[in-house]
């Protein structure tokens, strides 16, 4: 079975802290994505990567950075967490070079910034 795992289901951090969200997939997928999900706004793409050490900005990259040192791992970094970054964060992966490929999602990390 395909599997995308995220390091934490729930996380509480303080304003100004540096936050790392980790995502690992075991399907040898080339593409990986980070989304945030907020009520009434749906899923919004933060960053994505289609290869190791490659990254592309999504729709809302401000306040975030990413790292992809290994194919199976894609990390989302909040350099200095703010309360407006309280959200559900979803990681996804997909295979190959075609956009016609299903994205597999992890269970999500619910981040609260106090």
């Amino acid at each position, binding site marked *: 079975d395909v599997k*995308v795992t995220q390091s934490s289901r729930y996380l509480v951090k303080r304003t100004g802290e540096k936050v790392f969200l980790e995502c690992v997939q075991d399907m040898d997928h*080339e*593409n990986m994505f980070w*989304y945030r999900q907020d009520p*009434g*706004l*749906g*899923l*919004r*793409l933060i960053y*994505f990567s*289609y290869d190791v050490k490659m990254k*592309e900005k*999504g*729709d809302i990259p401000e306040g975030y950075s990413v790292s992809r040192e290994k194919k199976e791992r894609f990390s989302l970094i909040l350099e200095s967490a703010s309360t407006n970054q309280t959200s559900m964060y*979803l990681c*996804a992966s997909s295979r*190959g*070079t*075609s*956009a*016609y490929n*299903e*994205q*597999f*999602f*992890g*269970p*999500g990390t619910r981040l609260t910034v106090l």
Partner: protein
Amino acid sequence: GESVGLHLPTLSVQEGDNSIINCAYSNSASDYFIWYKQESGKGPQFIIDIRSNMDKRQGQRVTVLLNKTVKHLSLQIAATQPGDSAVYFCAENIGVNRDDKIIFGKGTRLHILP
């Protein structure tokens, strides 16, 4: 501008009845559409997809209909069961390049009445 939206935020259906969830998209260049199901506490899960050269595709108890003339997408679930309770997202993609993004709608919550 580009957008993927849903006509109803919440849909209540009697158990055993058929459910129809609607989605409107605004970009006529979109050529690939996906429906995702998200159960409480889980990440979105792929249900079914359809390419723009088709107007209907059937899966197990689900059917997706695409009307490109009016830019409308629908998901039909036959004999709705309690396990179908979830939020359903439509998503669209433009082009076939590996770095093309998939744009998600805001979601419709399907509530099953006993």
